[in-house]
């Protein structure tokens, strides 16, 4: 006789569960259209962000001539226009991605066709094969990979020590550096293994790079590594 009430409770619990599950499923089914209201380029019944839909499209431009960056540590700033998807009637927003072309004192490997490694390994992800594999020219996006500020190319490392949080580079790195005024990340553009290596500060990775080609006298930027907020 003692077991009977317990059994009835179990049955009630079971029935509750049976009615709760469809209710939960219905709630989940509501999430997808709600999300598509907020983020119209999400596919149906997908509730997480597909990055493919949010990929930006760049416009190919000549960023510098070879003569402008002829000597080691010559550099030139430029602005690359990139179209970002936006959830407005226009659908797209043209945003500026500032960049910098730098002439390094020695050649570094940008892309290893055999292994696909190097600073340009992201080219594969957007379906491109870099035409340049080794060069003393490198093109960085000046959007800081940390939190999206615009960082500076600083020709004299002493200015970095004075103005960007007191970091003194070790002797082999005492040359031009790149430094961000917002949160004081400092990058070495000429690191042979990892160009743009983070020397100091909170940045999690080197700055993003531009894919470029050389056509005659011109350096042509074609794509910028995806990621971050512009």
């Amino acid at each position, binding site marked *: 006789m003692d077991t009977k009430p317990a059994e009835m409770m179990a049955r009630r619990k079971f029935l509750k569960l049976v009615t709760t599950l469809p209710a939960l499923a219905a709630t989940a089914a509501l999430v997808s259209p709600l999300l598509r209201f*907020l*983020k119209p380029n999400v596919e149906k019944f997908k509730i*997480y*962000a597909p*990055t493919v839909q*949010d990929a*930006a499209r760049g416009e190919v431009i000549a960023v510098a001539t070879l003569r402008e960056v002829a000597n080691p540590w010559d550099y030139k700033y430029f*602005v690359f226009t990139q179209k*970002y*998807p*936006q*959830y*407005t009637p*226009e659908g797209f*927003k043209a*945003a*500026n991605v*500032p960049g910098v072309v730098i002439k390094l004192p020695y050649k570094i490997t940008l892309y290893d066709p055999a292994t696909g490694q190097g600073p340009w390994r992201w080219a594969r992800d957007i379906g491109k094969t870099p035409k340049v594999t080794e060069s003393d020219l490198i093109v960085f996006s000046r959007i800081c990979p*940390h*939190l*999206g*500020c*615009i*960082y500076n190319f600083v020709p004299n490392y002493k200015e970095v020590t004075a103005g960007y*949080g*007191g*970091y003194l580079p070790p002797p082999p790195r005492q040359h031009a550096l790149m430094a961000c*005024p*917002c*949160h*004081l990340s400092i990058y070495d553009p000429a690191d042979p293994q990892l160009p743009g290596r983070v020397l*100091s*500060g*909170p*940045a*999690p990775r080197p700055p993003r790079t531009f894919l470029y080609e050389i056509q005659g006298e011109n350096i042509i930027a074609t794509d910028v590594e995806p990621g*971050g*907020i*512009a």
Partner: protein
Amino acid sequence: MWEKVRDWLAQRRQKLDLFDETLVARQDNPLYLMGPMLYYFWLITVVTGVILMLWYEPTTTGAYTSIERIQNDIGRLALTFLGRPVTLGGLTRGLHKYGADALITITFLRIYRMYFLAEYKKPGELSWMLAFLGLILGMVSGITGYLLIWNQRAFWAAKVVLTVPVYFDELPLIGPLKFGSMIAFLFLGGPAVGQATITRFYALHFGISLVLLILVEVFFQRTRRKRINMSLFPLALFLVMLVVISIILPAESGRRADPTKTPLPILSDWYFLALYQYVKYTPPLWAGLGPGLLIGFGLIVPFLDRSKGRRPLERPFFTVVGALAVLYFLAFTALILFNIAVIERDPFLIMNITLVVLALGLFWELRHRRQQRQAAAAGISPPARAPVHG
């Protein structure tokens, strides 16, 4: 289970204080006037905000110009102050800005009061959690409102703040779902700061206050409590203070947003400055997780603090934690204003100071409890006190 939660909530609702309205008896002490003042400043901000909507234009091209126009041309009065014309538009904008600043200040002070006097203890848990959520929403309302000016400071604040959640994609397990990018894209209206961002921020800025105001009014209708238990004189005085400061120090507009140039030094509204300094010190994933954990800690602090007393010295550990929080808030704000940050040295120093101080706090707490136990064993009972909620 469900019944337990309902009982718990019903008990707390009896003593729920949104604006210290059940503490009328204690309002000979200005500390307890912070509740009604909070409500008062909030109303000023909402009303002036609605008036500003008449002239504000939420577009990337028109926002800055429309604000300038509100400030300098709308409702020009026949008097000038230091060569600048005094306008009704400028006054409204000043009241909105300084009213909001006062609102955030009072919210902060009230939260510190509730913390150091342990008002979050039973039955004040719900009041505390709502006050804390109110601070978060107030700050969100602040940052969404700030972007609407579309000046340099606002643009870069929005960009930096919304790059932070992108790093949640690095978390194990839930990271690959890319929900971090999702959060950023939902707020920005795409992967870049643009027109969609300003539209969404405008909606949020207005919506937060609108929804909260409706909820609060429903609550007051149902409990039939009085919203503001203050005489007319201080209310008029606060309004006059806001008007005077809006004339002497007109709300600034800064420079129009320029996406290719980061301003130096990069700053934000005053209540975000400490957070900005913190962001310099940590890896970017922790720039998001740190404040998240802090909010989490704030919300569950009533359930963590199991000490008996309410006075600060009767629960040393939580007093030390609170004092440390105040100190860091002030110190980090000062550091960023003077633009001091030595990345190689500071985080190590701060970590060590924090650990040592917390350890000392714990030690103090243990010693205090041992003394209490010994006193109890010796038969000395602490003097009886009136409960806070009288």
